[in-house]
Structure formats: C-alpha cells, structure tokens
C-alpha cells in the first residue's frame, strides 16, 4: 500500500515523464534542424539519419557567400521595425482615445477593427499586386511595410487598449489638472506607466512581421525579399542543400524564438485580444 505522500510523488513522476515526452516530441523538428545545420551536406543527407557525427560550423561561416544571407536579414529587420514603428505611431493615439475618452461607438469600432482581420488576403491579392505594380512598388520594402502596418494595426490597437484600460484614470486627470497638454500627457505620463505593455506589443508586432509569408512571397522577388522568401527559395528541386538550409533557417528563427520565450506571458494577452491574461 502506498502512503498518500508516496502516491502523490508517483503521480508527479508519471505526469512529469509524460509531459517531457510530449515536449521533446513537439520540439524535435527544431532540435533536428539545429543538429542538421552542424553537419556536412553528406552527413545531412545520410540514410539512416545521423545522430552522432563530427560537428562543423562550416555552414554558418560561409552563410553569406552561399545565400547572400545578410541582404535578406537586413530586409527582414527594416521591414519588421519599420512596420512596427509606423503601427505603434498610429495605434497608440487610437488606443488612448478609446481607453480614456470612451464613447458609444468605441466597442463597435474595436469589433469592426477586429473584423478587418477576417478579410482573407487572397481576396485582395490581385488589386494589391496590381496597385503595387502601378506605383512601381513591386519588390520594394515600402510596400511590405505599408501592408504589415495595416494587417497588424487591429491587433496593436486592441493590445494597447487593454493595457491602457488598466491604468487608473486619476493619474491622467491629475496631470491634466496640472495643465499638461494632450501631447505632454501622452509622452510624460502615459508612456512611462505603460512601458512594459507597449514593449510587449512591439515584440508581438515584430514577431508577426518577421514570420509573415503570404505577402512577402507574392510581392517580392529579389531586392526586397525578406528571410521568409529566402528560405522558400530552397524549396525548388535543385535546392537539396539541407545543411545550408538548416543553418539559414536556424539563424532566421533564433531571434524570434528568443523573443517569444522571453515574452510568452504578455503575448498571450495580445494574441487573444486581451481576453486571456
């Protein structure tokens, strides 16, 4: 007969083993990608797959010569940061007025913004493609910045709105009493209080822009192509360079993975439109 304590301990052990097994299974593709990136091309393609091999950093050392990695990475960086900055600039004032100057229409507007996310991108693919072509923006970073700003705007407004909602109104009113203008109120009072919330909103926006792969594949070819497009170019039949592909992929995913790990709690709030905190 087990005592209560013993049975609890056994329970913990079984649950733990099971959870670890599931986690390792789900993480395996990522682990395998990392491992493959440290192999030579011959080892990467070997049958059966090699778990023990002589690791090499060769794929990382020559990443620039072989794929022009930095051009794509730079495109990803500028597009993601550009769209995030622009998005925050537009979303913060909107969230401010919705949170602090609520009117009858605020809820409706918020839901309407959410509903624009329901518009499937293929529904507007043709006109956006033709408009971009018309304005000479095809394969430019500007067009992706504009589109990413617009597709992420509802999420940014919602997320910032839920953070602003948590701020006591009295603080803002006190500032107003002291004669602060609207701009001062926003810059000197609101922004310092909601730093954390705004930072995680920006992080979410960066993650979404970095990983976006519908518009980047359809609207760019070489000049403005971000990392998502570089990696897609390995899908062609002649692209059987698994070790190189894995190295490029690992580098492309690592920063976002780390961002995600750091901010998982805050991301839940943004991704669930504030419904789960």
């Amino acid at each position, binding site marked *: 007969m087990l005592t209560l304590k013993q049975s609890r301990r056994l329970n913990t052990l079984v649950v733990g083993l099971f959870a670890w097994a599931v986690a390792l299974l789900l993480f395996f593709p990522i682990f395998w990608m990392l491992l493959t990136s440290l192999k030579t091309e011959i080892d*990467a393609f070997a049958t059966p797959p090699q778990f023990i091999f002589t690791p090499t950093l060769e794929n990382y050392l020559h990443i620039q010569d072989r794929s022009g990695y930095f051009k794509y990475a730079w495109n990803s960086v500028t597009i993601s940061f550009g769209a995030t900055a622009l998005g925050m600039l537009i979303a913060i004032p909107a969230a401010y007025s919705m949170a602090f100057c609520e009117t009858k229409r605020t809820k409706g507007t918020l839901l309407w913004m959410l509903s624009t996310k329901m518009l499937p991108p293929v529904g507007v693919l*043709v006109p956006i493609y033709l408009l971009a072509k018309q304005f000479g923006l095809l394969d430019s970073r500007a067009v992706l910045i504009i589109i990413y700003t617009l597709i992420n705007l509802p999420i940014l407004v919602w997320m910032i709105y839920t953070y602003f909602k948590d701020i006591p109104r009295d603080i803002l009113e006190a500032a107003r009493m002291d004669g602060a203008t609207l701009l001062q109120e926003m810059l000197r009072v609101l922004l310092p209080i909601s730093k954390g919330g705004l930072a995680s909103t920006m992080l979410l926006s960066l993650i979404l822009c970095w990983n976006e792969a519908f518009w980047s594949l359809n609207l760019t070819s070489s000049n403005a192509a971000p990392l998502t497009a570089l990696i897609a170019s390995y899908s062609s039949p002649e692209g059987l360079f698994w070790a190189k592909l894995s190295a490029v992929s690992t580098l492309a995913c690592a920063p976002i993975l780390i961002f995600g790990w750091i901010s998982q709690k805050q991301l839940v709030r943004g991704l669930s439109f504030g419904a789960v*905190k």
Partner: protein
Amino acid sequence: MATTTTALPKAPASNASPQPAERRRPRLAPSWFLVSPSVVLLLLWMLVPLAMTLYFSLVRYNLLYPGEKDFVGLENFHYFLTDAGFIPGMTNTLILVGSVLLISVVLGVLISALLEAADFAGRGIVRVLLISPFFIMPTVSALVWKNLIYHPVSGILAAVWKFFGTQPVDWLAQHPLASIVIIVSWQWLPFAILILMTAMQSLDQEQKEAARLDGAGPIAIFWHLTLPHLARPIAVVVMIETIFLLSVFAEIFTTTSGGPGYASTNLAYLIYNQALLQFDVGMASAGGLIAVVIANIAAIILVRMLGKNLTEKY
C-alpha cells in the same frame, strides 16, 4: 515655479478654470482625430482593394492580353465555380481548417491540463519547448518537415518505418493533405497550449482543493471545473486560428505546390495560382470574392458564437 510658468500659457482657456461638473467628464474633443487615422487607413485597406476585386471580377482581364477589358457579367464566377480546382479547393480548405482546429483544441486542452496536473521537475523548460514551434516562420517549418522529416529516403520517418521493417512512405506525394494538416497543426497546437495554459493558471486553486476534499476525482474536477473555465479561452483559440487557417498559403507553396493534381490545393492557393501563375485577373478576382464571402460566413458564425466572449469584459 518654473514649471507653472511654462505650463500655464499652454493650457487651453477652457481648462484654466474648469467647472467641477466638467472636470469629471472625459475629454471628448481629441477623441475623433486620434482614432480616425486607424479607422480611415483600415477602411481604405478594406474598401479600395475590395472594390477593385469586385470590378475585376466582372470584366475579362488577363495580364497576357493587356488591352482587353470587356464587361462579362458573372462569367468569371461561372468559370471559377466550375473550374476543376474549385470543389477540391473548397473541400481541402474545410478539411484543413476543421482538422487543425480539432487537433489543436483537443490536444491543447489535454497537454495544458497535463502541465497543470503536477509540479514536476523542469516544468518551465517543458513549457518553453512546447510553445516553440509557434515562433518558427511558416516557410521554415514547411521545409524542415518536407526535407528532414517527410523525405522518403533520408527523412526521420523513413528511418522509423525502416526500423520496423516496413516500406517508407512518400508522405507528401501519397498523403499530401494529411501531411500538410500535420505541419500546420504542429505550428498552431503551441498557440492553443500557450493560451490555454495561461488561462488554466488563473483557475482558482482553492476551488479545486475544495472539490478534491469533497471527494471529486481528477476527471470530475477536469470536467466540471476546468473545462467550463476554459470556455472563453477555447473560443479565442478557435476564432484566431480560423482567421489564419482559412488563408494557409506558405506551407502549401513550399511543400506540394497544391499537388499532386489538386490534392492539396486550398482556396488561397487556387486563387494565387489563377492570378499570378495563369495571369487571369478576372477569374482570380471572382475567386477572391468567393473567399471573402466564405470568410464572412465563418466570421458571422464565430462572432455569434464567441464575439460576446471577447467584449463582455470591457
């Protein structure tokens, strides 16, 4: 003293000596011009391309024959709806969305319940490992699965199959849609886990303890306490995932290109194929509008079911 002198001139005249009644009232004036950039941009983003799609869908317009733009009525819709790819595209879209939703919600609930069941060693690491796939970009996950896992000669699954003495399967050729469902589920299950795990942590532990003392077994607690608590987060997961799953594209683009035949073509890929590979703007636009209609039907159903869940809190 310095601050008052600088701040005073800037203060608007009306604010200089506010009436007590006005003081409590929220500032209404700045409201509209702060919201309007977002609203106007989103309106433009919706209306301009949609109007153009509507127009293109009614004319014969192929980029290979630039001069021609005759009004053809509903001909494009007729062609799109009777296209050999439409029925498979439609069914594949529904199968893809339905099965990924089912997999991610059911497994998501079970896995997050497992994580909450006991405080085992390394729980934090397990959590991080579980949510990681969500942060991998779609083209990377598609290619890692295609090359390193599904590949019929050097993939991991081929090795496992050989180990058990059976013939390795060419997954993407023989079961293209199922293979894509697995890739997409692998990306979205972590999202469900992330949301549901956080929601479960907010479940009142005392309530659970009380139920346990009353003699409720773990299954009864899960069924009567945990699941009802999860109604709202599950609604959120279903809603957000539906939005993204209706337009899965990169995973198909980089693995099967919709094939073989139309076996793994969804609506998004079909329309892309019409527009940018066959240059038939008219027909692609008709398809685009049909995709919008389908998304709207899904949206109406979802908002009816779940919309209340999102706003009632505010």
